[in-house]
């Protein structure tokens, strides 16, 4: 009897405490605008720092915060209030967070979430609201082709953007004729491969096999052992831990020494290179992306050294793109003397920014709000005890349409599982 009374009292007390804490917490969450003494530049950052994409989300936040701390949280002369919300890599959560940031926190600028499906989830809502949104990582092609909006700015890349020059490079420089491909079975994989296939076949190459494996496949052995051996190279496009698992399987089954491995930009992203089982799993892989930690330009070296000093690792492309994003916003706000409340002027300024000296090189926008920038062919090398992307070739002024006229390019469908079709598949 006595212990029941004790338990009941404890429970009532606990509820009261919880209620009080909840009240205090809710109080803290009232639109912070009212509590702020001086008007701040509010940036809503939808991060994915938990869940399966946590490492990349973490890099994104780190890169952005590094720029902010270099500028003492002042962008363009305005004090920045960075409101970070975790979406956990789930599209529905990204939408809920976007609602909170726009309706509750009244942010001046929203940073788009990482994944394409999250970006699509928030797209309609943000387009309707008109809040400026900056895409730094989400690379779904169509977001700046058919499904763009006036208030969207992309400073990252589009999935097929680096693949177009790389396809040409593989055919004309590496002189590959027949390639087998293996990739993760979802939109990003289709778009990265699609761009490569288009230009590779345009220059006389042939894709003779296409294998698709579900995202998050634990065991790549059934796929690796299916790859055709009568090819000049294997093109792989995976993300996250699948990259590591595939690279390991590729070597374990003896293919690494026999058939060169090339792939989409993320195949050798710095965040994954450091997780490879053995250096030999990754050395020699050729990829193409707008960033490489092994870039030797002054701006790149400065950024890489500073990032290493702060975080003790090489910056991945997620970190660089967010750092440069910070630089972009800084420049835009400076040009309008900090008047971020004038939404139209702010957007116009964001669209007009040109960065000649970002860590990745020069960046400016095309008329579809997507960046025009360098694309680097990178080779993974083992130097001083770590794996590094060294640049072996540079393409300048690459847009999302490559050498095609936008109108022509937009006539073809979005790169898909079945487009371009595999005409030479045996």
């Amino acid at each position: 009897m006595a212990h029941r009374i004790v338990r009941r009292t404890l429970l009532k007390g606990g509820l009261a405490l919880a209620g009080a804490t909840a009240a205090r917490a809710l109080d803290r969450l009232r639109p912070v605008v009212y509590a702020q003494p001086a008007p701040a530049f509010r940036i809503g950052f939808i991060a994915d720092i938990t869940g399966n994409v946590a490492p990349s989300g973490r890099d994104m936040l780190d890169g952005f915060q590094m720029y902010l701390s270099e500028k003492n949280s002042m962008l363009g002369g305005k004090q920045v209030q960075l409101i970070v919300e975790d979406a956990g890599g789930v599209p529905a959560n990204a939408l809920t967070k976007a609602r909170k940031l726009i309706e509750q926190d009244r942010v001046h600028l929203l940073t788009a979430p990482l994944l394409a499906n999250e970006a699509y989830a928030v797209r309609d809502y943000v387009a309707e609201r008109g809040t400026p949104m900056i895409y730094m990582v989400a690379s779904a092609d169509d977001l700046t082709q058919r499904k763009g909006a006036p208030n969207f700015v992309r400073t990252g890349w589009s999935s097929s953007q680096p693949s177009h020059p790389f396809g040409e490079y593989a055919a004309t420089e590496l002189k590959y004729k027949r390639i087998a491909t293996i990739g993760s079975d979802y939109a990003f994989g289709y778009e990265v491969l699609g761009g490569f296939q288009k230009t590779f076949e345009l220059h006389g190459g042939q894709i003779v096999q296409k294998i698709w494996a579900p995202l998050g496949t634990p065991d790549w052995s059934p796929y690796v052992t299916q790859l055709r051996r009568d090819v000049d190279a294997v093109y792989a496009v995976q993300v996250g831990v699948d990259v590591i698992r595939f690279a390991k399987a590729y070597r374990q089954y003896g293919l690494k020494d026999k058939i060169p491995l090339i792939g989409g930009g993320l195949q050798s992203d710095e965040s994954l290179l450091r997780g490879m089982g053995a250096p030999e799993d990754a050395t020699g892989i050729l990829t193409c992306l707008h960033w490489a930690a092994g870039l030797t330009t002054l701006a790149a070296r400065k950024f890489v050294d500073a990032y290493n000093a702060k975080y003790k690792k090489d910056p991945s492309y997620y970190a660089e793109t967010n750092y440069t994003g910070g630089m972009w916003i800084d420049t835009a706000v400076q040009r309008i003397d900090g008047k971020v409340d004038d939404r139209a002027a702010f957007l116009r300024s964001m669209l007009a920014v040109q960065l000649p000296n970002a860590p990745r090189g020069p960046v400016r926008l095309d008329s579809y709000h997507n960046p025009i920038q360098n694309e680097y062919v990178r080779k993974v090398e083992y130097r001083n005890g770590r794996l590094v992307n060294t640049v072996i070739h540079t393409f300048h002024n690459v847009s999302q349409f490559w050498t095609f006229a936008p109108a022509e390019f937009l006539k073809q469908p979005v790169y898909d599982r079945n487009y371009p079709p595999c005409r030479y598949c045996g």
Partner: protein
Amino acid sequence: MGASFYVQQALNGLSFGALLFLLASGLTLIFGLMRVANIAHGSYYLLGAYVGLSVMRWTGVFPLAILAGGAAVALIGIVMQRWFLARFHQQTLPQVLLTMGFAFFFSDQALLLWGGDPQTIPVPKVLAGALVLGSVYFPAYRLFVIAVGLCVFVGLWLLLERTRLGATVRAAVDDAEMARGLGINVGRVMTGVFALGAFLAAAGGVMGGAFLSIYPGADFDVLPLTFVVVIMGGLGSLKGALIGSLLVGLLDNFGKALFPELSYFTLFAPMALILAVRPTGLFGRG
């Protein structure tokens, strides 16, 4: 498709199945025998792998990494069982909530302590090579996993079926009242079995960490697989867990190799079918 294709895929499937069995062996003890719905089992895998990774980085001794990972997590298991789970004996829903809470906690703490980047436990040099027979290529590490899986099965089976300790465990699990009446310290037996189950999960984590890499989310990736294998094999049946794991490994592998377009279904569709046909699992005691 020549004979070499079938041999290759069979070996692939068996090695994946063996890894699944290593994971499932611990859960067979915890869920199959003790009927504790331990949602934190995936976390045991993850934590064991991370601890093993750190030990491997400091010492480079693979067996030590396995032991250290196993011991650390066994300790966690003891704490969880003694102080939290014991009072919810045979109450599934509270067990689910409790262990899920722990799973979230462990998952986040692992992210905090080891960071988010996926990492791979370096395979010891002696196991880094491969066996080549004609056109069949077989990585040594995978053979190692099969060997370890079989050893664990034999060891556990001998323990449970042929030793006095095993008889004590089976008695305590089947009928706690009676066992207590016979003077068996049921509480201590339960804690011991739970700790062993946690140890096996963690050791599986270290072995898997060299194979599948460790990353935030690995805990929730292996969890459904492990539960499915244990239950598909039949609750309480160690033999069922082994057959179930190997079956899943082979079906998944051949499915992906022969029908790559159906890859999303090769893991779970066969399980659903097997359970639809035999609702108490392959060797379940119902």
